[in-house]
């Protein structure tokens, strides 16, 4: 990582840490609700990063990452609900469980390429809600009703609100995970991952154990997305099967494509983006209905769908890629 970008990242972290402390100064700008919204953006960014590690850096497609998110969320929820495990301890547990599940799914995925892998993961995404409702698991998963949880409490008597604490907790997890991902990608293993994406045969010939790397990448990717799921279970304090359908996986895909495939910064932008659109669609619908008087419910997914297609045409590398190109152009003009 170049020194200048390191400075930017540090600056962003300091800014993110300081923002909630401004709450007494600007109570309207930094409200608890907004902090909660930013927490969900952080969770989204982690989930998109998980998908990005697999698709962007290793070249394997997944339309079913919602499944791993669900596994993470349910692992956390069951641990908290049945075994009274504290919320912070569910994060590593979810990571381990999801790594195993992802690794196992990565084994058949080894034989699949391109469209076929997309098809298999698409099928997985469609089947997840039903699997969660399976009668034998009902005792654990709570069936259709799901599991209601408690929101994380502020520890050590810190003078923070629940939403502020949640925000700091999510931020901490995100920083650790992104730091880990950046280091992994910058290592021998990371280069092997990308070599498999770029030139499978060449990588194989060079002595990279492609099968091992692909399955382990699948596991790590699932673990990242699963951690995001576990965080979301703590944040929303509720899990239910029907919130883990195919459209959750489509949201991750949106984050990946809009943010930028194969870019760490892109994962953050993508996560922020899809939460933002998801949240503003309702107010947009209200605007269309009340102010324009049209009997039309604008769904976030109409926006998502149009954007998915538009981005493929206009900005194949997503926002992060577009920014990078613009930056290079500017510098080129100056030099």
């Amino acid at each position: 990582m170049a020194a200048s970008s390191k400075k930017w990242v540090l600056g962003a972290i300091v800014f993110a840490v300081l923002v909630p402390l401004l709450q007494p100064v600007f109570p309207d700008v930094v409200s608890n609700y907004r902090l909660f919204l930013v927490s969900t953006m952080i969770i989204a960014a982690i989930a998109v990063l998980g998908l990005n590690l697999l698709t962007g850096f290793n070249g394997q497609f997944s339309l079913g990452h919602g499944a791993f998110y669900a596994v993470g969320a349910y692992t956390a929820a069951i641990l908290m609900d049945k075994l009274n495990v504290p919320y912070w301890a569910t994060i590593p547990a979810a990571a381990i469980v999801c790594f195993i599940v992802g690794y196992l799914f990565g084994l058949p995925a080894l034989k699949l390429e391109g469209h076929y892998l997309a098809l298999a993961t698409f099928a997985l995404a469609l089947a997840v809600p039903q699997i969660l409702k399976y009668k034998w698991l009902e005792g654990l998963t709570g069936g259709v009703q799901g599991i209601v949880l408690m929101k994380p409490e502020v520890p050590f008597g810190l003078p923070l609100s629940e939403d502020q604490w949640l925000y700091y907790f999510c931020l901490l997890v995100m920083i650790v995970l992104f730091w880990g991902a950046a280091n992994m990608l910058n290592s021998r293993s990371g280069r092997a991952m990308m070599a498999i994406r770029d030139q499978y045969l060449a990588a194989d010939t060079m002595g990279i154990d492609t099968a091992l790397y692909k399955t382990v990448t699948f596991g790590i990717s699932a673990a990242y997305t699963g951690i995001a799921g576990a965080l979301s279970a703590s944040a929303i304090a509720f899990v239910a099967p029907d919130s883990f359908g195919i459209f959750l996986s489509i949201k991750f895909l949106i984050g990946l494509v809009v943010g930028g495939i194969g870019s760490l910064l892109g994962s953050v932008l993508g996560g922020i983006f899809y939460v933002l659109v998801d949240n503003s669609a309702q107010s947009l619908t209200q605007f269309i209905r009340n102010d324009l008087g049209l009997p039309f419910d604008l769904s976030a997914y109409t926006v998502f769908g149009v954007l998915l297609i538009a981005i493929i045409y206009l900005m194949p590398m997503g926002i992060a890629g577009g920014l990078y190109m613009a930056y290079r152009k500017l510098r080129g003009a100056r030099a």
Partner: protein
Amino acid sequence: MEQLLQQFASGLANGAIYACVALALVMIYVSTDHINFAQGEMAMFSTYISWQLMSWGMSFWIAFILTVIISFAMGVLIERLILRPLHNAPVLSIIVVFIGLLAIFNSMAGAFWSYLIKEFPSPFPKADFGIAGVIGPHQLGVVLVTLIVLGLLFAFFRYTPLGLAMRAAAQNPQMARLVGVRVDWMLALGWGLAASVGAVAGIMVAHIVYLEPNMMGGILLYAFASALVGGISNPAGAVAGGFIVGILENMVAYAGNQIEKATGVYIIGNGEKLTVALIIVIFVLTVKPAGLFGRVVVRRV
């Protein structure tokens, strides 16, 4: 025994639907190598169009024919406007575009017609035909209609010059172009036909599963399973796969039911339909990717 026959018959009717959607998938796959993830939502949208036409006072069959024509135009337009410019795009871009289409059709149907479940009429008379106790009139009608559609398609591809040109364009685009076939228009026609066949499936199944924007999700998954079982590069195989998977689905549920009755242990039932399809998809993909009737693709590296 009668229950088994009933299950078999309803499996046949479901299988007919899966066969149609699977055929639509295969038609697009054979000519372009793309798996159309939006096929189910396109069919769902067509079904809403026919519902709208009927609510404007048209009779069922007129609405049916009009919908098939509109769907054809829709399919051609999508190919020409959205997919044609991405002719040489990487696989991921194509998949993303299909997912985008899926999201658009799903949310637009919800926006126009709301997410409330609607009843969809059956065009077949209640008790006049069908074999009492075993197969209901709607199920028999579904099987008949799909068989007619499949027969028409077969005749079109086998006996008309246009059908021959389309087959040529799919099999060997370069050679077809050399002998004067307009290959890119053939692809667009293929898309139109696929959309029409999907529309037929949607209209036929809507009476059974009720009309709502998410009605095709499970059916699409079963259609994928059917296409894979039959061999995704083989249209006749896809049809056979549709019937096989349709019957298999109901037999699995029946067996689960019997086991529960005999031993009191619940293993599998109607609630696990999608899981069964998932297992079929992954099993076929990993164990026999060419399916039962497909061609084994050998690639030189």
